[in-house]
């Protein structure tokens, strides 16, 4: 039976549990205190109090927290809710650009190329606020919730849209910036002198309300994120159930009806196994037309269905099906076919393919009696032309080895960059 395994070249290493990792899920801001407390095995409130106390000494705690936020990575394999958050790299890049713009503004101010503090600073604040509002409701952050959910489930490496509550929070910051900039502009130009007391009273009331309602908003955001994560999990369960019903259960029912034909039952089981593996590894069927690994697995599956036996395919790396890859594929297909025809009953056939940026290598091993390539009759073109000749025409090479106790290994090797 086919056990097709694609080993990604960039597989992430297992996370070292001894290292400190931020825990954004359990944290109040960036999860620095929760991560340190989790590593030390103490209550996060102790670390939080230590940071607050340090912040009272010339802001040392704030600086330490900011540095920890930057340099301590978040733990991997977070929850679905964590995956819904925007990419941290994007936030850092935006803050970096903001600081560079601020630096340019400060430099212009220092050298005297400056209009007026009363104009430029409110204008910059209003521009930032406007950009935040625009991005949340018009830009990529304003994607539909269903699309956001789908992207979060698939964890695609792209800009994730923000969940509704977070989007409103960011938009709120933008609105505050724009309103604040307008007020500062009016105040700096003396337009607020007449209504100064009323504006001050309004600002005080708004700040007080914000302080009162902040914990409620924070809790509301947490609840919404948890509810959203639960909904995504339930969608995943429903999708899994539907897939099992449409594929595995149907195949099992079919196998019961064909129980008197062992060959047919084995073929059904192998086909279902291939489909299930492809689904679990999230490999679309179309890949067989475009990539060498997919095409190799498809070719092995076809030979297995027509000749029986078991063929185990392992691929490391992959490449597009260009002329050179097509040549290796055709030669490998012929080698697999020969192994299935002449050694299929002796045990499973192993196919190992490795694709690097410079080379394609495929090994086909069987457990048959073996043969001497030089003793093949001249009218047998399978090995001589379809394998050896084809590889040589494309600048590759073929080695056929037979062990002392039987078994044949066909090695196909082709430089990808060679002409």
């Amino acid at each position, binding site marked *: 039976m086919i056990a097709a395994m694609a080993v990604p070249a960039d597989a992430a290493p297992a996370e070292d549990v001894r290292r400190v990792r931020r825990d954004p899920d359990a944290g109040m801001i960036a999860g620095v205190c929760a991560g340190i407390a989790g590593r030390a095995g103490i209550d996060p409130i102790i670390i939080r109090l230590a940071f607050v106390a340090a912040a009272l000494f010339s802001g040392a705690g704030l600086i330490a927290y900011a540095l920890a936020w930057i340099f301590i990575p978040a733990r991997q394999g977070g929850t679905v809710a964590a995956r819904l958050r925007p990419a941290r790299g994007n936030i850092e890049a935006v803050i970096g*650009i903001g*600081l560079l713009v601020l630096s340019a503004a400060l430099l212009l101010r220092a050298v005297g190329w400056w209009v007026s503090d009363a104009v430029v600073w409110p204008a910059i604040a209003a521009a930032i606020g406007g950009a935040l509002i625009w991005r949340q409701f018009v830009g990529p952050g304003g994607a539909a919730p269903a699309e956001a959910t789908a992207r979060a489930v698939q964890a695609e490496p792209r800009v994730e849209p923000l969940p509704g509550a977070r989007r409103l929070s960011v938009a709120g910051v933008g609105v505050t910036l724009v309103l604040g900039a307008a007020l500062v502009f009016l105040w700096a130009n003396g337009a607020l002198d007449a209504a100064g007391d009323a504006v001050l009273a309004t600002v005080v009331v708004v700040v007080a309300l914000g302080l009162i309602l902040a914990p409620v908003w924070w809790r509301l955001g947490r609840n919404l994120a948890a509810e959203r994560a639960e909904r995504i999990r339930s969608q995943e369960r429903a999708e899994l159930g539907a897939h099992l019903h449409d594929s595995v259960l149907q195949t099992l029912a079919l196998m019961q009806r064909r129980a008197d034909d062992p060959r047919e039952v084995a073929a059904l089981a192998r086909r279902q196994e291939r489909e299930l593996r492809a689904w679990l590894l999230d490999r679309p069927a179309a890949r067989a037309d475009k990539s060498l690994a997919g095409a190799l697995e498809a070719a092995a599956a076809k030979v297995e269905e027509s000749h029986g036996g078991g063929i185990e395919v392992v691929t490391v790396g992959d490449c597009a099906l260009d002329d050179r890859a097509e040549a290796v594929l055709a030669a490998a297909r012929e080698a697999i076919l020969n192994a299935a025809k002449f050694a299929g009953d002796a045990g499973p056939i192993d196919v190992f393919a490795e694709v690097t940026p410079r080379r394609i290598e495929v090994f086909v091993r069987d457990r048959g009696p073996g043969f001497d390539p030089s003793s093949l009759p001249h009218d047998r073109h399978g090995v001589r032309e379809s394998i050896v000749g084809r590889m040589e025409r494309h600048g590759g090479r073929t080695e056929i080895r037979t062990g002392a106790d039987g078994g044949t290994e066909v090695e196909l090797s082709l430089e990808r960059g060679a002409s």
Partner: protein
Amino acid sequence: MSGRPGDTVSLVAGLAIVGLGVLLVLDALEAIDLSLGYLAPAVTATAGAILLVHGLSRSRER
């Protein structure tokens, strides 16, 4: 640069901080007069460059 992303970040961060350090040394030696008006943009530019490169490298890693 074809090295690891972390190498680029370290290089930019190191160069930016060295540049800032050179400015501070020149000011201490009174070779230049580094007032707050010039120091503030230098510090914010250093922090901004580090954050920008670090953020871009993280985005590429995703």
